[in-house]
């Protein structure tokens, strides 16, 4: 839920990276932190555990400049992907304005992608939010592995698995090289701001 600070003329919104464990959510954020220095307005905070697994969340504060005299501040979070951190994921998701679902292109992670998307839908529903209505962008990550000798799903297959019904904007990406990272975030921010505009118009 975006916060409108009228006195300070500021709008704060929350974007959450969601997806199965080890799909590259933190790598996305690390790339953004390095590549978008102008927009980053504080340090990136990571709470991770053994094996570089996100434990609670990663956090990155960003400033997008001014729209109609309002400063747009964005809090970007990642959730822990491991199945056992369900309650933490739900906590981090509270008050979310836009979601980036990061899927893993490795064929062995096909089922995990689908389960994570279902988990996202379930957690959003518990906050009274429909996955079909929230600003949502999908990123099919680890496309760089397609050139290596491991089974990687085609983008078409991933779209069929994950985006057949949702039909949200999606991007092939490689968070490790940065390909598609900026485009994914920009699209999500665009959809989120458009959603605010609609909400304001409808009163």
């Amino acid at each position: 839920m975006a916060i409108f600070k009228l006195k300070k003329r500021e709008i704060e919104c929350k974007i959450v990276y969601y997806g199965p464990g080890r799909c590259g959510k933190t790598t996305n954020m690390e790339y953004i932190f390095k590549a978008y220095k102008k927009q980053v307005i504080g340090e990136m905070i990571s709470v991770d555990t053994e094996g570089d697994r996100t434990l609670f969340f990663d956090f990155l504060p960003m400033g997008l400049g001014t729209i109609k005299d309002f400063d747009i501040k964005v809090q970007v979070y990642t959730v822990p992907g491991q199945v056992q951190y369900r309650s933490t994921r739900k906590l981090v998701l509270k008050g979310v304005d836009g979601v980036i679902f990061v899927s893993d292109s490795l064929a062995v992670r096909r089922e995990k992608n689908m389960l994570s998307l279902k988990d996202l839908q379930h957690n959003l529903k518990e906050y009274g939010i429909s996955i079909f209505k929230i600003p949502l962008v999908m990123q099919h990550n680890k496309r760089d592995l397609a050139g290596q000798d491991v089974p990687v799903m085609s983008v078409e297959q991933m779209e069929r698995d994950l985006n057949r019904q949702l039909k949200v904007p999606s991007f092939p990406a490689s968070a490790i090289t940065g390909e598609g990272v900026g485009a994914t975030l920009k699209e999500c921010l665009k959809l989120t701001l458009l959603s605010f505009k609609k909400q304001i118009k409808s009163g």
Partner: protein
Amino acid sequence: MVHMNIARKIKTLLQEAELYHSQGLLDEAMVKYNNATEIIQSNEKIKSRQNLIDNISKKILALKGDIIKIEKAPKKPEVSAKVQDLIKKMFSFSPDKDDDAKALDGAIALAKFGQFKRAILEFNELLKKDSLRVVAAKSMLRCHMALSSVNEAVAQYEQWLSDDIFSTNQLDKLRVFFESILTKEGIEKTLPRRKTPADNIESEMEMVGVDGVQVKVPEIEDYETLDINSIGITMDSGPQEGQVVEFKVRFQLGNVVSLLLPGRDKDLIENFKAGDVFNDIQYYSTVALFNASGIVTSVKEIKVGPRRGDYCVDIEVELN
């Protein structure tokens, strides 16, 4: 030709295993190493067969080491003060409330992220606030219990008995609450009470119903701070299908309430499985009655203590 295919297959499996290991996909890596080992073991014609198996065994051993490290890592370790401050600030969700309510929200957020020691310090500060004193005290006891420090929790309660910050009614509330937590943990302990003349004529049953605590009525969205006394669930199946069955809440941590079900009532227990969602639960608290959904987060048989054989069912309140 068959040999070449097998060699290629083994090479591919090992490449996959290496890559999955490097990606942190440890279970997937283990499957591939095991597949490769099985193929090598079943083909006696493969050259240096034992060497290959030995090499893969070493890799499997290293992989198992990584898996154990992850499994043994604390699930909710204490994090730095900077991260705790961030949790307090970003997960309190109370932009329009007063400073006290914000502070309470912040302390609850810390407890939810398992930062119990810091949360205890924050709740301790909130004991100074009339309107939050009992809620903060209960939360402190819950945090001590979550830290498995029963003795500290008891010492804390006894300290409050000798302090004059709580009224006798408030202390009674705390005692009843704390005893129910201890019972849930299988600890049978009668806690001391502050002696007053009135105590001689008040019965335990009346005490539970007394609502003399001056707690500010929270808004419904702050349900996690509400103390839920009991809940009513419409049964989906079993002999009580369609009926609303009322359960006493034995323990509450944030928005998770715990019920104790008698072990002999198998039909009733069958109604609760982890992951089950009940869409229309009635929640009764001393300050509000509301309907909301709830998800069963765990169903565990109690293995020790006087409640051995009974079941503890945790339900997470879902307000939206």
